């Protein structure tokens, strides 16, 4: 029987589980804990009980596949305009570790046309082989055709692990593929590891806006699928003497697609895109006025980075939504992140706390942003920013 059980002999009525429950799903009856209808079986109460009185069980008779048939680690090599995205190389770096831990091959999946040079680059970055689906009609990403092709490849070659970049396209492709294959998918993993005994993938990801980390497994279904945000993993140094094989799989290229991409419009052309930037300068309400955002853009330009924004100033209409960093905006992980006049609400932190170096500039020394800052400057952004622009402009030339 699936479900949660309170072993009433062990329950001493300490109520610790009540505090742990996020859903108000535990009541006390006659000094014992009782689960009510609000329970979502999230499991948060289990470790909270010091007396092992809570047990969650799952039916053993889950429909499973023969997982031993599945071998190897795959990385989806997303490309746009015939250039493979940086995140694919980062995933190959991580995939290499996983493949080595499993003594299994690492493969890249490349869909597009005229990508011979890119296929070779993928090998240089760690792939043992590249499944290259070369066809004019799949030059540009399309949810329908890419899902079809990807599923055909998985069914033919049966990888045990599939890693996909958590980009706009990846976050659309991965769930559609996983749903068709009826397998598990873990979004936005920040840590991937192979369990040394069970040889399964341990996927760690943030939840609740980064306040909690969860490790997730997919024990009985294959492939084990994960998406990973750009800038989270590190690519290997490319080695163009590495040998690898380019395989041209025999797949049916879908025709008469329902989903049609009519136009592709680039609006962010002046600077680097936020998700790809090594340096991001973000501004918040501390700037005082919409016109002062120009200082943020200027520093970003001087540093060759991108300009970001807090939700507050996007909502206030100072800046376009495409610049918003945080839970309801973009999640970024640059090498250097400047938070200028941003207090650091947890929703903002959720979108940038994985940055390597965080610089906080704020008038209020108690602003939460200072807690995660590598370097803090307590002061008025309107005085500090012009000085920083001057410093970098002089010294970078």
């Amino acid at each position, binding site marked *: 029987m699936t479900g949660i059980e309170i072993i009433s002999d062990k329950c001493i009525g300490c109520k610790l589980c009540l505090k742990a429950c996020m859903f108000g799903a535990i009541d006390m009856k006659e000094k014992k804990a009782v689960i009510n*209808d609000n329970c979502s079986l999230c499991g948060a109460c289990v470790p909270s009980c010091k007396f092992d009185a809570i047990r969650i069980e799952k039916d053993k008779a889950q429909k499973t596949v023969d997982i031993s048939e599945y071998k190897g680690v795959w990385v989806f090599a997303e490309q746009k305009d015939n250039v493979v995205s940086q995140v694919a190389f980062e995933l190959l770096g991580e995939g290499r570790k996983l493949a080595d831990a499993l003594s299994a091959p690492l493969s890249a999946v490349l869909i597009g046309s005229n990508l011979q040079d890119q296929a070779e680059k993928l090998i240089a970055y760690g792939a043992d082989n590249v499944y290259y689906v070369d066809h004019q009609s799949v030059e540009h990403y399309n949810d329908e055709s890419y899902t079809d092709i990807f599923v055909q490849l998985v069914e033919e070659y049966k990888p045990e692990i599939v890693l996909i970049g958590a980009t706009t396209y990846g976050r659309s492709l991965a769930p559609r593929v996983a749903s068709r294959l009826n397998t598990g998918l873990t979004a936005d993993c920040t840590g991937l590891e192979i369990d040394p005994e069970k040889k399964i993938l341990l996927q760690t990801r943030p939840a609740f806006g980064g306040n909690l980390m969860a*490790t997730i497994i*997919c024990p009985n279904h294959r492939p084990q699928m994960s998406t990973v945000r750009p800038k989270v993993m590190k690519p290997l140094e490319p080695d163009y003497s590495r040998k690898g094989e380019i395989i041209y799989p025999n797949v049916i290229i879908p025709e008469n697609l329902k989903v*049609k991409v009519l136009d592709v419009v680039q609006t962010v052309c002046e600077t680097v895109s936020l998700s790809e930037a090594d340096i991001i300068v973000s501004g918040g309400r501390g700037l005082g006025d919409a016109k002062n955002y120009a200082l943020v853009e200027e520093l970003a330009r001087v540093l060759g980075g991108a300009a970001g924004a807090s939700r507050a100033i996007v909502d206030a209409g100072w800046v376009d939504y495409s610049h918003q960093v945080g839970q*309801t905006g973009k999640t970024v992980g640059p090498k250097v992140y400047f938070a200028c006049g941003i207090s650091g609400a947890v929703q903002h932190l959720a979108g940038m706390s994985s940055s390597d170096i965080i610089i906080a500039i704020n008038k209020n020394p108690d602003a939460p942003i200072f807690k995660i800052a590598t370097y803090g400057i307590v002061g008025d952004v309107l005085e500090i920013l012009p000085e920083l622009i001057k410093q970098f402009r002089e010294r970078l030339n």
Partner: protein
Amino acid sequence: MNIIVCVKQVPGTTDVKINKETNTIIRDEADAVINPFDEYAIEEGVRIKEKVGGSVTVISMGIPKTAELLRETIALGVDEAVLLTDRAFAGSDTLATSYALSMGIKKLGSYDLIICGKQATDGDTAQVGPSLAEKLGVPHTTYVRKIEEIKDGYIRCQRMTDDGYEVIEMPLPAVITVVKEINEPRLPSIKGKLKAKKYEVKILTADDIGADKSLCGLNGSPTQVIKTFTPVHEINGEILEGTAREQAKKLADKLLAMQFVKCR
């Protein structure tokens, strides 16, 4: 045009506090809201209805309490609210959730467009929209920032990408997930509030929608959480002192020394 909007109850995240001992979230009783992104989905559904006619139905899978939140959506112009609730749904991952929603939606009858928020703010996965579309066998587009046209059995919309947008056309029925750029959600009207007060949310169980229980909840979820822990932020931040000029110089010294910022 029959429009279905999928919504989720999430914790109001403004005051998430973590119990350091148990690594779990401490929540206040009344601390549940409709996922913020779903508000844009509801608004878009109501706007389409106002333009071309039809009805808007919200559907959610969740605990019984969710019904209260669903009822409030009636005040925003929603016509019907349906809650899928059953112990069999407990512990669902995104695959099992998509399955349950797909069965619930099939039960409701014919539909033209399904709108979801881009993602929910508790899990942030953005997976249910595309996964649901697959379960229903209809096309989908994510991150929709504008509907250019919707009529005669097709939709043409703009999908936000990392550096701009794409214009995508698909036949209906279809699923879209929307970003907050798409509209400005309205506040409930007095008349709407009165209507909501009287409205009774339709409750459906796993049996009501003919769901295979082995595909629901914990049983139907390929993924399992095996451990949760509080992230450690081991940062010994350094505060740079001095005048504005001195502070700026110190920072520039450090960044240039680390070569994160390079001369061109």
